[in-house]
């Protein structure tokens, strides 16, 4: 009997060790932040840093609960997300259309690309005063700024993706009698999709950045406004809470795109170090 039970028990030990390892792997990313939070709390409690400048994590939790409780936080998150969503869709949508035109036609490229390359060189915040002058201080300048931010990464990556489609695959399309928009839809677009996603993801993260820029300068709502508000009233806890919420929103929206990417681009034959 013992000969039988020995391998069985090793198997059990091995599998529980394996689960433990998997658990470690999953939580190890939280390790460093957790240690930092503990150090942070102790340092502030011990009085080494002014509580006014660096509120301890426990106070942040209270602030967060307060903001969430009276609904203001949700309001700020809602308005900011809406701005990003609208700005991103406008910017990325235009970029896809213009990028397709530039990537697919040499003539359009010669006509448009130099202009876009020049526009790209403008530091994006330099647009702000002009947008405020032209569009007032309503939603329009904010959404325009976000759209500008989303436009360029999508445009550049998409054009590169289309222009780098393998000749061999285009020839397959040609042999099968595809021309014009059918060649574009069946060969160029799918082949450029990986690049498009790279562009969309960096465009989205730039959208969040530009959202904050826009809201810092002129807004009466949104997370950027919360940052300004915290600074003006001397409440570091508000500022930090807003930063954390922005980080979470940015990460969540990026994860959504990543999820979509994994679903749509499962066919890619790429080197992937992630555990399956």
């Amino acid at each position, binding site marked *: 009997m013992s000969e039988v039970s020995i391998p069985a028990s090793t198997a059990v030990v091995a599998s529980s060790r394996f689960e433990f390892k998997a658990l470690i792997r999953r939580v190890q990313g939280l390790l460093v932040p957790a240690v930092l939070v503990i150090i942070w709390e102790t340092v502030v409690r011990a009085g080494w840093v002014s509580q006014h400048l660096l509120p301890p994590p426990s106070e942040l939790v209270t602030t967060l609960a307060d903001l969430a409780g009276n609904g203001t936080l949700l309001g700020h998150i809602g308005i900011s997300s809406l701005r990003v969503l609208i700005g991103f869709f406008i910017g990325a949508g235009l970029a896809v259309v213009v990028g397709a035109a530039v990537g697919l036609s040499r003539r359009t490229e010669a006509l448009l690309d130099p202009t876009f390359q020049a526009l790209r060189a403008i530091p994006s915040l330099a647009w702000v005063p002009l947008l405020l002058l032209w569009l007032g201080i309503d939603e329009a300048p904010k959404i325009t700024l976000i759209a500008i931010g989303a436009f360029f990464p999508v445009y550049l990556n998409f054009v590169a993706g289309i222009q780098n489609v393998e000749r*061999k*695959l285009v*020839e*397959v399309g*040609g*042999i*099968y*009698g*595809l*021309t014009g928009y059918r060649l574009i839809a*069946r*060969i160029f677009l*799918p*082949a450029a*999709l990986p690049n498009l996603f790279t562009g969309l993801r960096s465009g989205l993260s730039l959208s969040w950045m530009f959202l904050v820029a826009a809201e810092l300068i002129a807004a009466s709502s949104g997370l950027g406004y919360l940052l300004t508000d915290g600074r003006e009233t001397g409440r570091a806890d508000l500022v930090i809470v807003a930063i954390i919420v922005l980080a979470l929103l940015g990460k969540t929206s990026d994860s959504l795109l990543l999820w979509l990417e994994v679903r749509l681009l*499962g*066919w*890619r*034959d790429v080197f992937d170090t992630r555990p399956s």
Partner: protein
Amino acid sequence: MSHNLLDLAVAAKDFQALRVIKNVRFGINAGEVVSLVGPSGCGKSTLLRIIGGLDTSYSGKVCIKGEPPHLHSREVGLIFQEPRLLPWLMVAENVAFELGRKGRHHPYVTQLLAEVGLSDFATAYPKQLSGGMAQRAAIARGLFTQPSLLLLDEPFSAVDAFTRRRLQDLLLSVAGHHGTTLLLVTHDVSEAVYLSDRVIVLADRPGRISGQVIVGEARPRDRRNPQLIRREAEVLTLLNDGTNAFFDLSYDLASAPTPWQAARLSSLNFAI
């Protein structure tokens, strides 16, 4: 001489300063099976690309059913030297590429995949296939479309000998059934002779025709048929520039310095 399907006369084809093809002329009648054999780099793939309309920078005149070849014509199909499957489409969608996405449930797709031994991989992506499997999928894709002239560039070079014979017979039966004309490039002389009505032999530098062997055997053929073996010998002779010389490398090898000398065990000295 005029042929009713393809009339090809390529006076010259250059890649930059390099003349790749010089004065190649041949024709094909509808329903024929013709092979092109020749040393590597003699321009076989280039000829197929010209006929398929992928390459238009040559001097000469090529006519398919009286018209110059043009890309996007449905008369000509091409199975490339590499599989060239579209990586974002499943195997079945690749095979039915002609029909678009909805085509993958077409009964002929299932049938062809079974014939090339890929039934279990209909919903796999090309990255999940081995080289030979990908090539078989590409063959299925080439057979799915039924052009008047199917060009095949070394279609069976990446598959094992057993599968190769099955695919050869599949090719003949599909082509016979649909009346497809075949122009096939291969390095395998017995394959060329077994499949073809005529074998056109090319020589290289620059690529030109060194001769043609007509295989007048009725189908289905027996691979052991001595007539076929005789035709093979003729093709081989043409490939060797009309001689039956064979390359004797033993002298070169003997005169070359031996890069590595096996140590004689007795010469090793173990101190104990």
